[in-house]
């Protein structure tokens, strides 16, 4: 099982990666810019994502918006921003590859002449509405902000969420868009993958044709942060318009592809994936203390966060949930995971690796994976190494990583409770300030 590719770096520093898959007459074009909210500074949070919106508003030579010509050619397209990177993709009929490359290269090379104050202010309104829809007007929606602020020092770029703070978004200036583009959107800070019903040689020629004339300086320096990250236990409280209280536990954990990252992925699966998983079985099925539980190892370039989230059933407190979770984590740390549990999780992960090979485009498709590996570890061929990280994990290595990282004295515990029901929270919780 592998994911073959050709990689070629243009003179201007743009990495071009090509993968052939003739299963369907389509081609995926995927561009990663190595910039995200980790490249922002306090006072201007949310900027990388706001900028992503402007990449869809047209560029110098096609000022009718980015969507129109591509949708007319049958494209699916989208983009996303996270802490580490911003990605853009379109999946087009193979007959429209020229158009897709023309469009991507026009916004990489010629975005700013088409930028206006009107577009900027419109997209700021759109983003503020995105924030309202996905955070402010959603139950439990503000807890991520409280968790990140508590987990990281105030000047650490992971201490804010990618969506940003309202006052920062309102303070953003048009001129900052220009300098942001010049600093972070050069070809040397980007990676272009083309995957699908194409021929490698022809695609490399096309990529050179459209992108080689784009000039730009060197890639910006990597973000440096002081480490290691530690925190004492902090217990926070949010009263929210929710029916049931929910506990959010978060720990610092290994960075993306770092030692222990795969172990914690496996552990999250063992703990909460499916009705036979440890925490579902104990909390939801046997003890009926919770209505749901989820666990995730969310790993990023600078560091990771391991998180357990559980909702209390009516009549139960978050302390009861916490007690059961602590006992299960102690068992994991004492190397009590069974061979069968680990085997089941590994088979699921292997299956998902295989299934990812079936689709060329979109978030998580082959083009996105190749770019991800290239940007993070500078090796698009990391697929098999990635999978072997999981195969090499054992209950003993998982136990060791758990002991090292998942202490109940070094974690953030946020209790979200219905308004007025503070007695359901963990004891000694302090009201969190979020906005």
């Amino acid at each position, binding site marked *: 099982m592998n994911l073959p590719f050709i990689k070629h770096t243009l003179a201007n520093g743009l990495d071009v990666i090509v993968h052939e898959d003739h*299963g*369907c*007459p*389509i081609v995926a074009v995927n561009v990663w810019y190595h910039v995200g909210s980790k490249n922002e500074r306090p006072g201007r949070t949310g900027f990388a994502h706001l900028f992503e919106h402007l990449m869809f508003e047209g560029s110098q*030579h*096609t000022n009718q*918006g980015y*969507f*129109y*010509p591509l*949708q*007319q*050619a*049958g494209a*699916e397209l989208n983009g996303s921003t996270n802490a580490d990177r911003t990605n853009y993709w379109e999946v087009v*009929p193979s*007959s*429209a590859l*020229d*158009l897709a490359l*023309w469009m991507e290269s*026009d916004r990489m090379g*010629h975005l700013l002449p088409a930028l206006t104050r009107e577009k900027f*202010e*419109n997209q*700021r*309104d*759109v*983003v*503020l*509405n*995105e924030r*309202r*829809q*996905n955070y*402010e007007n959603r139950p439990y929606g503000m807890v991520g902000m409280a968790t990140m602020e508590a987990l990281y020092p105030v000047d650490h770029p992971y201490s804010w969420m990618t969506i940003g703070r309202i006052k920062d978004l309102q303070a953003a200036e048009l001129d900052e868009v220009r300098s942001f583009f010049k600093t972070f959107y050069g070809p040397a800070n980007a990676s272009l993958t083309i995957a699908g*019903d194409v021929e490698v040689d022809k695609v490399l020629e096309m990529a050179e*044709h459209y992108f080689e*004339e784009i000039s730009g300086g060197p890639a910006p320096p990597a973000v440096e942060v002081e480490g290691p990250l530690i925190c004492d236990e902090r217990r926070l409280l949010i009263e929210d318009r929710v*029916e*049931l209280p929910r506990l959010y536990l978060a720990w610092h954990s290994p960075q993306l592809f770092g030692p222990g990252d795969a172990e914690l992925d496996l552990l999250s699966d063992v703990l909460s*994936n*499916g*009705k*036979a998983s440890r925490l579902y079985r104990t909390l*939801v*099925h046997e003890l*009926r203390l919770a*209505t749901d539980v989820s666990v995730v190892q969310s790993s990023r370039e600078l560091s990771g966060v391991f998180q357990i989230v559980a909702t209390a*059933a009516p009549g139960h407190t978050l302390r009861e949930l916490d007690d059961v979770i602590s006992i299960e984590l102690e068992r994991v740390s004492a190397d009590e995971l069974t061979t*069968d549990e680990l085997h*089941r999780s590994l*088979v699921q992960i292997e*299956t998902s690796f*295989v*299934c990812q*090979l*079936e*689709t*060329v485009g979109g978030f998580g498709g082959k083009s996105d994976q190749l770019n991800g590996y290239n940007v993070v570890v500078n090796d698009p061929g990391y697929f098999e190494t990635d999978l072997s990280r999981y195969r090499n994990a054992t209950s003993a290595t998982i136990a060791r990583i758990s002991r090292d990282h998942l202490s109940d004295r070094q974690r953030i515990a946020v209790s979200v409770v219905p308004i007025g029901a503070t007695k359901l929270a963990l004891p000694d919780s302090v009201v969190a300030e979020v906005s």
Partner: protein
Amino acid sequence: MRVDRSRLPEVEPDPSFTFPSVCKVILPNGLSVWSVEHRKIPVVSCLLLLPGGSAEDPMGQAGVTSLTAALLDEGCGKRSGLELHRLLGRLGTQLNVRVGMDATTLRLTMLRRFSNKALSLLAELVGEPRFELEAFDRLRKLRLDRLAQLREVPAAIADRAFAHVLYRDQPYGHLPFGTESAIRRLTRDDIVARHSQAYRPSEAIVILAGDATHAEFEQMAGEAFGDWKAVGTVGQQSERIPHGESKRASLVVWDRPQAAQSELRIGHVAVARNTPDYFPLLVMNTALGGQFTSRINLNLREAKGYTYGAQSSFDFRREPGPFSVQTSVHTDVTANAIQEVLGELHAVRDGRPLTDSEIVHAKRTLTRGYPQGFETANQIVRGLAQLALHDLPHDHFTQFSPSVTAVQSEDIVRVTQTHLDPLHLSTVVVGDLTVIKDGLHDIGLDAPEKIVLP
């Protein structure tokens, strides 16, 4: 050679698209087996389509079809639910259960080498579910807790309220998840009865796609499902034919004090999937509100900045489903947003019909992007389930693009006149009534009803 940026590159003619052949056989127990060879990666997708959805929940039992499906994997035959899930886990697969208004689907995707075992487990859990009282009690309680939680999710409340306003106690009047009052009254016997009615091999279809030959698919389906027998008798079939309330204009509000946004649903009962106007309606809606570059989204998002996104859709079901506009807008502009939506609906029908270039744009979007809907085995089985559910012709997928291309602007005018009724729209708002009520008054939407959900 420098890039010619004076104009966009021409798009070459579309690659031809033909849907792969579907092999159909019927097992001795009456179960239909459809298969597609799709040999890209060593994976098999399986979808079991059962024709009963929540529209067939008996009167007073809103949610029973969905709860029945949710209980299937809580134990079957000699296995407890826990054992069943451990077995599925060892096969690297998970059961995906979806209950819609018209049908129930159970879906599994697994590595080819596990497909025989996984299909046997699927057959066991549809044929011999235990429906133990403990599991029934536990899942019913979880469902009630979830429904309580969803009362604070604006989009979920808006969807529930919209179905209720349009269809009241008709079969499409509640979402598959059900209502608190009905679920509280359900008994285990109701589950057993619903199962014996809806889970019958002669009514079901197994759809398989992936890395095997037709003969291998037939064999694996036969081995797994050959012994599946219906339980009990069909019993009294629901006599209720789903149809909407007679059309009337209305405004209902679910008050959500201090809400940052107002969640909106605006629409009316429209057409069934089998309408002869399906293709013109699809093209019309794509231009009106079906994609990013549609009128409604370009207006509310890109011109006004009222929202993160706005869409319209015809929900094509077995019986007439709704046409609706869905969006979530900043509280301060709630009335303006409603007015803009109403304006767009009036305009597309009467004042400012779709132009030829809008129609061409929509048609190209639909046809040129079509093949990418069939890249994976999962997409293929889900596509075929639609074919089966709506009794569509076997060459529907291959004929899709020619049918869209054949739509004429006169067709669009006709179907817009016939099926879009801006004078009889129901509007649901989940938002802060205190803040928005003056604005609603100003646009002539007075005296909103407060909605009570069952």
